[in-house]
């Protein structure tokens, strides 16, 4: 029996070495690529034929707005048929948020990229550099996009995607509870401490904590880092990318993060983002470090909620108390798509003069272009007041591995398995590694 086993292992080793000739594989791959390219050229030349049929593959990360986008795709299909005699069939795929990245990546690596796909604005540079995105700078719809939003989707002076979800955000709060406790939004860290005390005296829990998904605790670093560096050390991020700075310089941000955790709801690790939003709406806490994108869930759960937004103070310098301006989701057009022309038309249609407003309003997105003529919700207006006063900053673009690491470390900080020194050391390490790899 032993002998048999050994011979089996040997045979296995032989299989592996016999087939392990990697060189052949790559050449086969590149050949397949060539064939596909020639095919796409033919496709383009036949595009002049009348009444043609076009299939468009779109992948988006908005499963919660599935219905709205499906309707919008139907509208686009109808419009194309009526106006240009093109029968478009859209395949809309909406994987859930935690699987989206891996599915998109599988599609990209398999040369099966959807004609249009959404990405995180933070990653736009990576995708643009890898050659996946089409330059949309000269498209008519882009011209009407607000400048400060346009900036967030611009890479090397070119607009590489249609901004969809653009938000001004920092902390959501329950206006009724604040009124009840006789307090107003804080401007400094000391005021925030006073706010926590006042709320607790009234029997309210100050902060909603929902740390089950790593991106939610990560929001705390996003807003505090942004405020701190914009107000105090504007060149910090630039130096981080050159390996010349450290999280030690922004150590202060953990003061407010600790304050939030100490004054938060219990059982944070068992609370997902959506459930957290629903609980916040039902009065579990008075404040929630969360973007206005969760307003939809909050308002459906409790339509009577009086929701507000204020900027989270980082320290006692009001210069650091600012609103985060971010574009979270961007729609990109695949640069080598077979139906690129129609895909660009769809991208334009997302910002269509007549139809776009209804879509953006139905999904609860903020206006991003002068064509969006709907009245924004009161909490959005709260946030834009800061922007008008010049008290905002563009969301810091960190390497996504560092962003992930921040989320993980804040979970660990919450459960007590790491201290601030450990966090600083590991974040510096993660940043260096990301710098190393992007060379």
């Amino acid at each position, binding site marked *: 029996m032993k002998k048999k086993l050994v011979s089996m292992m040997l045979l296995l080793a032989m299989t592996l070495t016999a087939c392990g000739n990697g060189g052949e594989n790559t050449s086969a791959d590149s050949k397949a690529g060539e064939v596909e390219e020639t095919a796409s050229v033919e496709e383009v030349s036949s595009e002049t034929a009348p009444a043609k049929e076009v299939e468009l593959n779109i992948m988006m990360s908005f499963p919660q707005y599935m219905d709205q986008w499906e309707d919008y795709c139907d509208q686009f299909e109808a419009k194309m048929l009526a106006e240009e005699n093109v029968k478009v069939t859209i*395949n809309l795929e909406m994987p859930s948020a935690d699987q989206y990245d891996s599915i998109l990546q599988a599609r990209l690596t398999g040369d099966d990229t959807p004609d249009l796909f959404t990405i995180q604005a933070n990653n736009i540079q990576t995708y643009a550099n890898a050659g996946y995105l089409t330059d949309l700078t000269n498209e008519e719809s882009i011209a009407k996009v607000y400048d400060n939003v346009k900036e967030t989707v611009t890479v090397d002076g070119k607009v590489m995607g249609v901004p969809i979800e653009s938000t001004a955000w920092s902390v959501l709060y329950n206006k009724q509870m604040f009124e009840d406790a006789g307090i107003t939004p804080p401007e400094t860290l000391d005021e925030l401490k006073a706010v926590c005390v006042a709320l607790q005296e009234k029997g309210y829990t100050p902060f909603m904590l929902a740390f089950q998904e790593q991106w939610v605790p990560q929001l705390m670093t996003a807003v505090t880092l942004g405020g701190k560096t914009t107000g105090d050390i504007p060149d910090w991020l630039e130096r981080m990318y050159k390996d010349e700075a450290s999280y030690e310089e922004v150590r202060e941000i953990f003061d407010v993060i600790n304050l939030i955790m100490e004054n938060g709801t219990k059982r944070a690790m068992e609370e997902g983002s959506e459930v957290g939003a629903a609980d916040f709406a039902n009065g579990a806490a008075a404040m929630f470090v969360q973007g206005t994108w969760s307003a939809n869930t909050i308002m459906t759960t409790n339509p009577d909620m009086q929701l507000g937004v204020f900027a989270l103070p980082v320290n006692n310098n009001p210069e650091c108390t600012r609103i985060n301006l971010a574009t979270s989701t961007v729609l990109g057009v695949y640069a080598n798509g077979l139906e690129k022309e129609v895909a660009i038309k769809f991208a334009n249609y997302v910002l269509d003069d007549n139809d776009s407003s209804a879509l953006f309003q139905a999904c609860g997105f903020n206006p991003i272009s002068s064509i969006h003529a709907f009245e924004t919700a009161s909490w959005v207006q709260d946030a834009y007041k800061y922007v008008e006063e010049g008290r905002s900053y563009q969301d810091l673009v960190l390497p996504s591995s560092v962003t992930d690491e921040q989320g993980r470390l804040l979970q660990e900080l919450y459960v007590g398995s790491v201290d601030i020194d450990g966090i600083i050391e590991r974040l510096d390490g993660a940043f260096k590694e990301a710098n190393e790899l992007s060379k």
Partner: protein
Amino acid sequence: MRGSRKHYQIFITLLLIIIGLFTSFPLILAFINSFKSNGELLSNVLSLPSKLYFDNYIRSLEKMSYFRSLGNTVFLAVLAVFFMALFSSLAGWKMCRTKTRLSKFLFAMFVFSMLIPFSSIMIPLYKVVLALGIKNSLIGLALIYAGLGESMAIFIYYGFVKGIPVEMEEAAAIDGCNSIQTFFLVVFPMLKATTATVCITNMLWVWNDFLLPLIIISDNKKYTLLLSTNTLFGQYSSDWTAILSALILAALPAILLYVIFQKNIMKGIADGAVKG
């Protein structure tokens, strides 16, 4: 002696009932709460629903395109199992009957590749799928399952064939049957129980597998039950009533089949394990 026997019976029956409750606890709770309105669920998760609230189910049925997804899943699972049983019985039988080095080599190759983790082949497999143009094809997916799962199936068939006397086949050959006729007329009928085992264990696997269809199937008209359940989770992630009713709907067909065919299923699992 008699009294202690009786006490022992009562004791273990009680014990088993407690463990049984623990085992079915998640299912029972999901079931009870799926009939509540969201407000009732949040106020008390352990009470019986005050009145049966079917809206959750109506919404989930529609959102999941339930019957279409179920149809797809059945089609996929049956086809996958068919390919697997056919391919591996042919191969397993012949490998067992052929005493050459090549045969041993092939058998070892199949057996050891059982241990390859799925994560290491996922992306290359996806490239193969695209090159063959079988993305979004349920038939293609069934063939992939056959390719991934047949190692185990061949292993099982091989073990069974070893126990069947070769005389029957020799007699058939003398009667003028060629190999193919021998296989289908003589050998395959004797492998019926094994085939049932292979079909049952793999049916369970294909039915409950998630990652592979997630990557291969992007067209929601071809979604399997788990994929459409997953989509619904994305859409209603803050609403436990929607999630729980979808969970029950997704688990229901497998549970029903299990209750109906449980004898065969148990036998299938046991035979597959012990003989293999």
